[in-house]
């Protein structure tokens, strides 16, 4: 017994000895590589959300903070494809942000597990079970992605006609280096600052401001294949046309003043869907 008590005391003394860590100070973010005349690296965060998802406003708020921190280097897209959580609430909701492509994108990028959840550049990071990532990891993965070199420049030329509500757009790609993987282009019409119902931790909020809503995907869910070679110096142009719908074709007329266009280049998959570069412009 006595020997054992001595052993216990030694055991405690050994483990209770404090271990001081030597770690670098936190410092500020390192930001992305400037790369000379290259277009700055951008990162796409695709948030899966729903008006009945009580945890989702926390994710949306976090995205706004990250947008403030990262400026134009971060591009946000809110996809209302969170299963049953995205169903509008009768009597409260006066719009429906769901779309078949939103759910198809959930199937493509999922499985969705817990909310808030988002993909960062559609990448499956090595220590993650899937592409969907919880919000306390977003800042870190965005930082990691911003460290990557820009491989392709993405710009958007567009015209919008107020009278016809028609938008014609051309996405221009310019490759900075050879890319061996098959690539696709994705183009999305978004609307932001839409006031409508949202379930929040404080209860029903009829005046919640929804941001970066994916209203329409102009390309197929898996993207439009980018044909031809994708070597350094290659350029591509891909054009699209779309008319912003009005009620009664949709429940609420989309406000052109709040609409935008996001274009992004990603691997075709199906195994890897990583986004190489994204770009966003306002419609007006």
């Amino acid at each position, binding site marked *: 017994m006595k020997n054992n008590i001595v052993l216990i005391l030694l055991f405690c003394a050994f483990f209770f000895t404090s271990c001081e860590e030597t770690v670098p100070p936190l410092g500020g973010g390192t930001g992305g590589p400037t790369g000379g005349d290259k277009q700055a690296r951008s990162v796409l965060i695709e948030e899966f959300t729903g008006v009945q998802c009580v945890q989702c406003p926390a994710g949306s708020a976090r995205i706004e903070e990250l947008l403030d921190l990262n400026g134009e280097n971060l591009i946000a897209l809110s996809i209302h494809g969170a299963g049953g959580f995205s169903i509008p609430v009768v009597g409260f909701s006066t719009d429906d942000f769901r779309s078949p492509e939103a759910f198809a994108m959930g199937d493509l990028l999922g499985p969705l597990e817990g909310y808030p959840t988002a993909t960062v550049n559609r990448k499956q990071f090595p220590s993650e079970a899937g592409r969907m990532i*919880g919000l306390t990891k977003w800042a870190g993965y965005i930082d990691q992605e911003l460290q990557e070199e820009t491989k392709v420049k993405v710009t958007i030329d567009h015209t919008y006609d107020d009278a016809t509500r028609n938008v014609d757009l051309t996405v221009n790609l310019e490759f900075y280096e050879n890319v061996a993987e098959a690539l696709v282009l994705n183009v999305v019409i978004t609307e932001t600052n839409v006031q409508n119902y949202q379930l929040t931790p404080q209860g029903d909020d009829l005046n919640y401001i929804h941001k970066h809503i994916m209203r329409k995907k102009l390309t197929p869910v898996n993207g439009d294949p980018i044909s031809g070679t994708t070597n350094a110096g290659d350029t591509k142009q891909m054009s699209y046309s779309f008319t912003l719908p009005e009620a009664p074709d949709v429940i609420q007329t989309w406000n052109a003043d709040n609409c935008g266009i996001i274009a992004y280049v990603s691997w075709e998959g199906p195994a890897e869907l990583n986004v190489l570069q994204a770009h966003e412009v306002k419609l007006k």
Partner: protein
Amino acid sequence: MKTNFLFFLSLFFFLSENLLAQDTGRFSGDLETTVNFFQKDAEIGAANTPQYDYQFVGLNSWVTLNYSYKGFDVGARFDGFYNSNLQDPQNSFNGVGIGRWYLKKKIHNLGVSVGYLYDQIGSGIIFRAFEERPLAIDNALLGLRLTYDLGKNWNIKAFGGKQKNRFDTYASFIKGANIEGFYSPSDTSKWSISPGVGVVNRTLDDNTMSLIRSEVRTYGQDTFVPAYNVYMFSVYNNLVAGPVSLYIEGAYKSDDASRLDIIQDSVANSALRENTGSVLYASLSYSQKGLGISVEGKRTEFFDIRTSPLESLNRGFIGFLPPMSRTNTYRLTSRYASVTQFNGEQAFQANIFYNPSRKLNFTLNASRITDLDNNLLYNELYFETKFKKARKWELIAGFQMQQYNQDVFEQKPGVPIVETYVPFIDFSYKIARKKTIRTEWQYQFTEQDFGSWIFGLVEYTIAPKWAFAVSDMVNIDPKKSDDIEHYYAFLASYTHKSNKFTASYVKQVEGIVCTGGICRLEPAFSGARLTVTSTF
């Protein structure tokens, strides 16, 4: 994973080859397979998941094989999930592979174990590697464990490894040690003690640390320098003195980042904050012939210990906090159950069991759980009595009252505390030597959530092989719909020796499913279910 498996397989065949010629050893194992056939029923909320929309069939399967020979124990478990909603009820998971393998050997006083290990220190507060299949939790530690017997009643243990994450492992490294024993002045003494001390350390990997540093860097004045290491200590003892026993465990964790929901601008934002943590748990019990009394108390403050502070939901738990409310089994008494609050909880529970004769017994249980500001989380009062009439019939009757903080437990903002009153009765009657009919009736009165329910079940058993049951759970005073919904179930099971086959057709309402205080919200289920279990 593949390397581990090949190593294990080689070892397994090496042993088999060498042993077949000499001695047979002993094989054992078990099988559990469940096939779910999903049938959409939007009326009850069984819809809008891949299984209901287009997959229709999902399967979960576990097959375990163990082999023992001359002190060697080896084993492996095959896990298969096809379109499974077990990991996440809202989604589909596919994965097939070796879910577990292990090798154990005792060499005199030294015990050596490698592979996927299940173990715990004390009551599990600072370390518990365990499996809870209904919640898709498998926290086995992939690593090495050494134990050493220090005489007859004392042993020391040390272990290290990485926690299992589905068919992979989490990146952080977990190691710990534990010494515990037993002391009594003599073999005839009426008192004894079983003390123990444990320590666990988790070291984060560089990638996780990089993510945490990026995250906390954005917190402005709330930022902090996160630590790679967290240390957890626990000291515990079980004192037995005649009919009284007292278990006390105290645990402490060093500064560590953990997720907290912080309300900012009317939005609950999950953020990392650095805190030390503590748990104090005590259980006092008294038992003598026909009477048992126990009282438990627990106080928890910031003890959400995971493989990484970035993990959430039921993922990556390193420890386990003992639940402080009764584990109910009847359908309506178990409809609402308390969910362990890792960041702050104080809880008390008392249980009295009185058995005045072999034919009659009484159980009384009371529990109360609040947060650290004394806001009510859960309150329960439960009474049950059982009366047996020879071998002819048995009657169980009781009453339960609950207050359940649905806002906190299910994160349903603004909803009121659910108050329930549940009388129940369970009557079994032996109509022949092998034939028994049993019926259950429960009524749950509540003005909140879905409103009041009634549940009835009739079960007919032809021992030892057949059992048939039909049940219905009816929302007789619906608060969430205009219609009275029926959640009926039909079940048949056939048992032959150690094999059991069960087929059921079920409509099941949304609700909390808990195992030992770890819970999750299960959506409604509609469809058929086939289950096969076997041991060999």
